[in-house]
């Protein structure tokens, strides 16, 4: 993954730009997509609580990495969508899912020694998609690219709102 801030900024730009062309996306759309872009990295919970510790406590196998896969990520999307008012639920789910999908797409760019990304399509498939090998998680340049673009979009969006 690139850093989470890059993921969030890409989701912001990805929803705000189409909002300028269509009335179907509400003002809250970008905030939901931004949150969705963070969801797959809930798998990083292992940093705070190792999966083997959870496994020992529960007495069953357990792996946080599953949260960084399509199926479990969509379950998190469904859970969060259930927290909003009924009339907003479907659109919220769609925007959260779009944010999460943008996260997976960006993660395909991460450099991997084996040339393949993790099996993101779980539980549908264990296929390892090819990685584009563009950047390391710790490379600053994706953020240096995303930040000025997002800032420009933010300023233009404010101007449009004020007009």
């Amino acid at each position, binding site marked *: 993954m690139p*850093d989470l801030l890059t993921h969030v900024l890409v989701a912001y730009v990805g929803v705000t730009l189409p909002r300028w062309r269509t009335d179907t996306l509400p*003002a*809250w759309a970008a905030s939901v997509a931004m*949150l969705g872009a963070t969801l797959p990295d809930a798998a990083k919970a292992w940093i705070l609580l190792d999966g083997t510790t959870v496994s020992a406590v529960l007495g069953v196998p*357990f792996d946080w990495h*599953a949260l960084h896969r399509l199926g479990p990520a969509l379950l998190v999307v469904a859970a969060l969508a259930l927290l909003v008012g009924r009339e907003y639920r479907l659109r919220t789910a769609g925007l959260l899912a779009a944010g999460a999908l943008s996260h997976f797409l960006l993660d395909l760019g991460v450099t991997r*020694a084996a040339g393949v990304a993790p*099996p993101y399509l779980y539980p549908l498939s264990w296929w390892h998609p090819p990685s584009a090998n563009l950047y390391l998680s*710790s490379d600053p340049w994706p953020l240096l690219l995303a930040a000025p673009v997002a800032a420009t979009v933010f300023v233009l969006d404010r101007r449009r709102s004020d007009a």
Partner: protein
Amino acid sequence: MEDARRVLALALVATLLVASLVHYGAVADRHDIVQSSTAKLDHYHRHVGETVYLWATVTEVRAAGVVVTVEGHRLTVRGVTGDPDPGDVIQIHGTLKPGRVVEAERTVLSVRERRLPLYAVSAIGVLLALAAVARRWRLDRDSWTLQPRKGDDA
């Protein structure tokens, strides 16, 4: 009625989510390339000659190779590119050789010094997303649901 259905749906989704984490933990060793490679280290001698893809932590740099640990397994890696230091994370795609030596075909190094800035910037990303949600949504205490703030629901 709506509340009861929502709680039931939430419980169902939460159950499925935990089940998927358990299922993944049970079967990833056989399917995920990194986890299946790591699992091979438990019976190293059986898998000598096989190709592996490992994520390891550098513990020592010697003339004979780079000493790494992968989930408690100590290995020597030959053919590492870059300039690793103890604490760095290294991806290794290579072949298991006798004597717990991995002959690397390709390695990718993530230096330790960049890890803290990565976490810090990522934390800012989470805070930014949460702030955006808080700015656009409010908690309706009658229905215990999140609702767009006034003027934001169009």
